[in-house]
Each structure stands twice: as structure tokens, then as C-alpha cells.
């Protein structure tokens, strides 16, 4: 047996390039994320949603479910092509979640990289389940897709929490610290506000849940390196499938290695087995083994396409079981009451497709929720059914749909929310406002108010008022303005509900009744009025 040669490490630069690339991509994605905001222009000029448009898993599932080719998601083909050429490089070089997980290594200090993947066929099972469900028009990819998970947590928890923290800290220094401290902290705060932090405080219903999912994935690193990527990630499984079909790969050691199994011990993906065979399904081309192999026998290799065979590496039994299980879901979901009677509290963003088509396309990426400058869009819990989890809905008590804003449609990567022109947006009816006259001050208490009327943005006012004289509690005549709604003009933006000064529940509230996404949702027509009502269709 020859003594190991001193490694010449000809792949060292490649590994460096990988790390630089990871860092660069992570920063790029964070930058794009922070640009998912109003920036003084009615349009967003960067492809801030790029991440979701290059994702083959989301593209495949969405197109399957929508039964349409979605041009917006065509860039995913580039990743498919590159994966056929370079294997599962995406996971090792580009995926921001993967980079984040790699980045936590120094914190979590775990040595269990080489251990065999705990659930070797789980990721493929998830992939299969998601694909089958999508084919049955029930898209679930958004729940397991790494980017959706990451951006959801960033948008709904991390970023707003960062703002919260900064605001707390700089309020403290502003109010308590001596002037010389403020001479340092105030410019810093101004800088952070201008370039890093979100513009305003935002509040999100599912902040904890979104965060918990990401945290669980990060914590799983303590069990095994790249736990999520190896055991769960359906996108990784899909890319691994392309990798197997593709033409390059990393070729492992040989008999000559003797008892050395360094590569299989250090591999973060558990891609190298006892025989030092490197599995293209799992190898993410991180270049660690190439650099560290004492004999430098591991190298990149070309081969004829498809030579390694295709398939999802699932046993037949598991395959059939998964297909049956996933296939059983849609019929069961179809018998819920929700199917018969849509939830009136489910107000979708303007431009959203009709409910079924909307859910088929929505990948739960939270881009729209992130960009919503009125903090009106919230992730749903179960308001739209389990298959609507995390999809956007307007919750108007705490935020509203800004009249002149069309950003959500612009950032939606799948067209679940259409891009609307300003004119279309002004006319697009997402819901309808109703008074609770038992609470509304001019009706119930004889107290002047009409804050709602003041804020109603439609040029032909949807909230108007009648001038009346009422007798108040103490028997005095009080001249008052009592508001009412003109059906034909109300678009359901919800600013009235947001701004109603009552504590607790507003005296005016919006519901999705009357939304223009479906003829059945129309309101009855006023025979004398200008609204077209049910009869319009």
C-alpha cells in the first residue's frame, strides 16, 4: 500500500468558487427580497420574484395544476437545463436555504455529516405526492418548497421582527441615552431605515408558524448536516432526478483507496456509500471530497445522458401507496362545506383568479404579502381550507388595499394574481363593505364621525352620508351625518374598516360578497340604481 501523496488539491479553487457563489446568491436574494417593496414608482422594475420563477418544482406543480404553460415560470427551464449538465449543483451553489443551512454549521457544531441519510426515500415520496396532488389540481408544493418556506419566514417573521427590534433599541437610545450616544445611533438608525429595514411596522397572523417551520429546518441541522435537503426537500429530489439523467457527475474512489473512507465521512449530503460510490441523486457538487481526498482520486466525469438510469428511487409499494394517498385527498376535500359556500371572510387580493384557479397557482411564496404596502394581506390559516394555508387574504381591520397600488400582481410569480393596470385596479371589486349600525357611532350613539367616508378612495364616493337630526341620549336634537354605502362604487378595499375609530371590532367591515371573481358572488341589483347586480351576467 502506497503512502498517501500530499494532496495537490486541484479542486480547491472550485470549492472556493462554490462558497463565493453561495454567498453571492444569498446576498442577491436578500437584496431582491428587500426590494419587494414600493420604491417611489408604481411598478417594480426588478424581477424580485426571480427565486420563484427559476424553481422547477413550483413550475412543474403549478403548470400541472393549472393545466397551462405559465410563461412567467419559464426561467425554471434554465435550471432544468443546467441540472442536466451539471447535476444537482443548484443545491450546493445557489439555493439560499441550502446556503443558510451551511452557514449555521459553525454554530451547531455537528459531526454527523457522513451518517447515512435518515429517511433516504422520504424526499422522493414527498415529491411524488406533491406531483400527484398537482396533477389532480391540488397544489401542495408551496408547503414544502424550500423557497416558499424561506421567504415566508423572512417576510412574516424575521424582517418585521428585525424592524421591531431596531425600533425598540433606537427608541430606547433616543429617549434615554445622552446626546453623544445619539450622535452615533441616530445616523445609524437613519441608514438602516433607508437601506436595510422595512419602511413600516407590519403585523402578521402566522408569524410564529412561518418562523417555526424555518426554525425546525435549521434546528434539524443538529441531527444531520443538510437534514432538510437530504431527507425532505422535494425540489432537491427533483433536481437529483435530472442529475441522474444528466451528463456530468463526481466519480468516487476505487479499490485502491483501501480502508480510507474519508469522503463518505465528510459528505454533507451522505451521497457517498461504503463502496465510495457517489450517488448523483444526492451529490450537490460542494467539492468538499474532491478537495479533501488524500489521494486526489475523486474527479469530475462526463458520461452519456441517461446512463445512470432514471426513476425516483422508490420501491414499487411505496410508489403505489403514495399515489393512492395523494389521490384520495382531492375527493375528500371536495366534500367540505367550504366548497358549497365560500367563506365570506376570505377576501383575495385584487386581480386574484377565481378561487380554484387561484389556489392552483398560488405557491405560498408570500411575495404579495411582503409587498403589500397597506399591511392588508395576511397569510390565511384555515379560512380557505387546508389547501389555502398561507395563501394571501385581506384582513381589513389592521390593514387595507391601497387604492393606487398594483404591486401584488406584479410580484406574484405564477400569475395567481394578475397584473392589473391602475384603471383595472380601480374598478376591481374584491369585496364589499357593510355597516354594523348597532356599533356605528352616528347610528347607534348619535355621535358624529364619518371617518370611513373621509377615507373612502373611490372618486365617486362609495360611502356617502345623509344629513339627519337625531335625538341623543339626553333628549337633545343633534344634527348628524349618517353614512351609507353605494353598492356600485364600493370595491372592498377595506380602508374604511381599518380607519374606523371604534376600539375593537369596526362598525364597518368588508366581506368578499360581491367580489367580481365569480358571477355567483354578485350582490343583488338595486332596480333603480346604477349597479348591474346579479342580472349582470
Amino acid at each position, binding site marked *: 500500500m502506497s503512502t498517501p501523496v500530499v494532496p495537490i488539491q486541484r479542486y480547491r479553487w472550485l470549492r472556493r468558487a462554490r462558497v463565493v457563489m453561495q454567498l453571492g446568491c444569498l446576498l442577491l436574494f436578500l437584496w431582491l427580497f428587500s426590494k419587494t417593496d414600493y420604491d*417611489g414608482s408604481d411598478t417594480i422594475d426588478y424581477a424580485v420574484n426571480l427565486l420563484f420563477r427559476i424553481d422547477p418544482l413550483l413550475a412543474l406543480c403549478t403548470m400541472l395544476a393549472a393545466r397551462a404553460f405559465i410563461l412567467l415560470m419559464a426561467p425554471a427551464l434554465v435550471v432544468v437545463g443546467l441540472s442536466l449538465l451539471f447535476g444537482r449543483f443548484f443545491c450546493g451553489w445557489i439555493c439560499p436555504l441550502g446556503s443558510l443551512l451551511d452557514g449555521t454549521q459553525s454554530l451547531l457544531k455537528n459531526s454527523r455529516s457522513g451518517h447515512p441519510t435518515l429517511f433516504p426515500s422520504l424526499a422522493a415520496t414527498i415529491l411524488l405526492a406533491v406531483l400527484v396532488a398537482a396533477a389532480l389540481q391540488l397544489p401542495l408544493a408551496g408547503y414544502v418548497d424550500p423557497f416558499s418556506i424561506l421567504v415566508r419566514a423572512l417576510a412574516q417573521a424575521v424582517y418585521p421582527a428585525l424592524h421591531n427590534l431596531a425600533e425598540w433599541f433606537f427608541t430606547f437610545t433616543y429617549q434615554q441615552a445622552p446626546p453623544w450616544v445619539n450622535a452615533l445611533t441616530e445616523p445609524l438608525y437613519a441608514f438602516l431605515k433607508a437601506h436595510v429595514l422595512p419602511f413600516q411596522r407590519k403585523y402578521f397572523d402566522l408569524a410564529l408558524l412561518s418562523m417555526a417551520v424555518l426554525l425546525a429546518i435549521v434546528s434539524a441541522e443538529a441531527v444531520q448536516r443538510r437534514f432538510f435537503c437530504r431527507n425532505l426537500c422535494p425540489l432537491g429530489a427533483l433536481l437529483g432526478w435530472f442529475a441522474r439523467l444528466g451528463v456530468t457527475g463526481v466519480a468516487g474512489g476505487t479499490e485502491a483507496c483501501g480502508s480510507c473512507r474519508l469522503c463518505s465521512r465528510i459528505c454533507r449530503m451522505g451521497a457517498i456509500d461504503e463502496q465510495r460510490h457517489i450517488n448523483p441523486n444526492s451529490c450537490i457538487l460542494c467539492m468538499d471530497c474532491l478537495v479533501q481526498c488524500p489521494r486526489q482520486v475523486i474527479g469530475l466525469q462526463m458520461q452519456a445522458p441517461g446512463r445512470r438510469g432514471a426513476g425516483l428511487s422508490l420501491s414499487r409499494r411505496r410508489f403505489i401507496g403514495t399515489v393512492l394517498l395523494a389521490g384520495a385527498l382531492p375527493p375528500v376535500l371536495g366534500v367540505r362545506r367550504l366548497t358549497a359556500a365560500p367563506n365570506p371572510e376570505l377576501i383575495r387580493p385584487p386581480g386574484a383568479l377565481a378561487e380554484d384557479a387561484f389556489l392552483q397557482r398560488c405557491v405560498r411564496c408570500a411575495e404579495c404579502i411582503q409587498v403589500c404596502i397597506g399591511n392588508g394581506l395576511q397569510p390565511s390559516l384555515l379560512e380557505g381550507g387546508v389547501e389555502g394555508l398561507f395563501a394571501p387574504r385581506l384582513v381589513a381591520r389592521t390593514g387595507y388595499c*391601497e387604492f393606487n397600488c398594483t404591486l401584488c400582481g406584479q410580484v406574484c410569480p405564477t400569475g395567481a394574481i394578475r397584473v392589473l393596470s391602475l384603471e383595472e385596479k380601480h374598478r376591481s371589486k374584491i369585496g364589499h363593505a357593510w355597516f354594523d349600525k348597532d356599533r356605528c357611532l352616528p347610528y347607534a350613539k348619535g355621535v358624529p364621525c364619518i371617518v370611513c367616508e373621509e377615507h373612502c378612495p373611490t372618486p365617486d364616493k362609495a360611502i356617502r352620508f345623509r344629513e339627519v337630526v337625531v335625538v341623543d341620549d339626553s333628549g337633545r336634537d343633534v344634527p348628524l351625518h349618517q353614512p351609507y354605502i353605494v353598492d356600485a362604487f364600493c370595491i372592498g378595499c377595506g380602508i374604511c374598516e381599518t380607519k374606523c375609530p371604534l376600539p375593537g371590532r369596526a362598525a364597518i367591515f368588508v366581506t368578499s360578497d360581491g367580489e367580481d371573481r365569480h358571477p355567483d358572488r354578485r350582490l343583488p341589483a338595486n332596480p333603480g340604481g346604477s349597479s348591474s347586480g346579479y342580472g349582470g351576467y
Partner: protein
Amino acid sequence: MINRRRFTRRLVYAAAGMMVPFSPVFVRPSPAAAQKPPELAVVSGPDYPALVREALRLIGGMERFVRPGKSVVVKPNIAWDRPPELAATTHPQVVGTVVELVLAAGAKQVTIFDHTCNEPRRCYVNSGMTELIETLRDRRVRLEHIDRRKFVRTSIPAGRSLREWEIYQDILTADCHINVPIAKHHGLSRLTLGLKNVMGAIGGNRGRLHHGLAQNLADLATVIKPTVTLIDATRILMDNGPQGGRLEDVRRTDTVIASADPVAADAVATTLFGLRPEDIETTVAAARMGLGEMDMSRITVREHRL
């Protein structure tokens, strides 16, 4: 401890206070009004910057109000996400000219802000204010977004219905406060003019002030006192205010009104709408509290057409 004399005095005050709203006998003339009538300029013509300059010149020039080295707050109405032609926000040319004059008078710093009703950045951009400040390119001028830390709970000792409220620090601490509202219709208060424009300098649940709005605004006016009020009536909103949105509701009046007396400025602006000062409860409430003159016959109006 309350002695008898103090007790009787309180009783008398309390009684007086209660009667004020009903009895004009108790109207306390403002000291200023008692001495010499407030001066007010009404200037009209198509050249907005010229209007502003002339109006201020007629009431003594910006130098009368802004001393060199002083800090100034210019408070326009930029509360809505509307372009200038819809007359929901102060015209950027008017604000720009005011700022130029303030700078020429030697101000050390000019802060412009509004606590908006729509999304703040959209309001600043769509009202033309962002562009204005970019073209001014002067480091002394800051267009500031509301910084929540700066709302200070301020007591309103003379207030009749408001005892305290959160007020934006800058407007209280600036050496000089120039109020630059736009004159427009308002569903609840009929018109929104200078006195109503302070709504953009306060925090808290502002909607709550709508219950008894006139008195609340008059109370706020006892602590937020503009040095000058310059009302932009270059185009006014006749209906569907304060937000508007329809060109049909906009009327071009090509006028600005300037006065150091906030009540007089509002009173005269009211006449542009074909209304009398008494029609606007806010004006009446403020005049009753001695904050200025609303009797047109006692205001020295200098009118000029350019």
C-alpha cells in the same frame, strides 16, 4: 386643601365655562384683535410662485417671521395619495416657494412632513413633494417621514374637550411653524383649511377626534400655533373632500391667502366657497377661544391681482 375663596372662584369659572358654548356674551376677544386688526393678504393670479411671494410680502415679508439661524417647520397637506391636479394636497409650487423664501430669510433648517392618511411614501411621491425636495437640492431642507418616536404626549391646559394629545415634537420645538394647507371641502367639517391641517401633526387615534371635531381642533390650536398660515387656494375642492379624486370637483381659483392670524385666514378662505365664516364650526370654536379674528369687518384685508 381648598379654601372657601378658591372654591367659589372655581365655581364661577366652571359656570362660566359651561355657559360659553351657549352665550356669545362670554366671547373673550383675543388680545391681538383688541389692539389692532389682523392683517391678511389675498392674492390671485396664474403664477403660483409669484402669488406666494406677493402674499407674504403684503403681510410683512418672510423676514418678519423667520429670523436667520432659526429652525422652521413647513406643514403642507400631503395626506392623500393624489396628484396635485386633484386638489387634495397642497400644490408643490406653493410649498416650494415658501421653502425658498424661508431659506432666503436665513433659516438654518426646514423640516417638511405630514402624518398621512394613505401610505406615506405614496402620498409624498404622488403629491409631488418628493420631486420638489429633490429639485431643491438643499441640505437644510428635509422631507421627513413621521418618526413615531417623536410623538409627545402634550397637555392642553386651555383645552375644553381635549386635555392632552400626542403631538409631533418638531412642530412644538421649531422656532417657526408655517402652515400651508390647501382649501377644500370636507364631509364632516364642511371645509378643511388651516386649523384642520394640524391633524397631520398629531398622533394617536385621530379618528376619535371626529366626535366633536370643531372643539377638538380649536383645543389643539391652543398649543399648535402657526407663525404664519398660507392657504393654498390655487385650486380648491368643492365636493367629495378631503380626498376628492374627480376633476369635476376641482375649481381653479388661482388664489393664496396669508396671515399670521390662523382664524382670520380660515375665515377669509371660507368665502371662496360661497360660505360665511360662521358656517364653519371649527372657525367659530377657535374664534370663541380667542385664537384669532373671524369677523370679516375687523380684518385688514390687502387684496391684489397679479
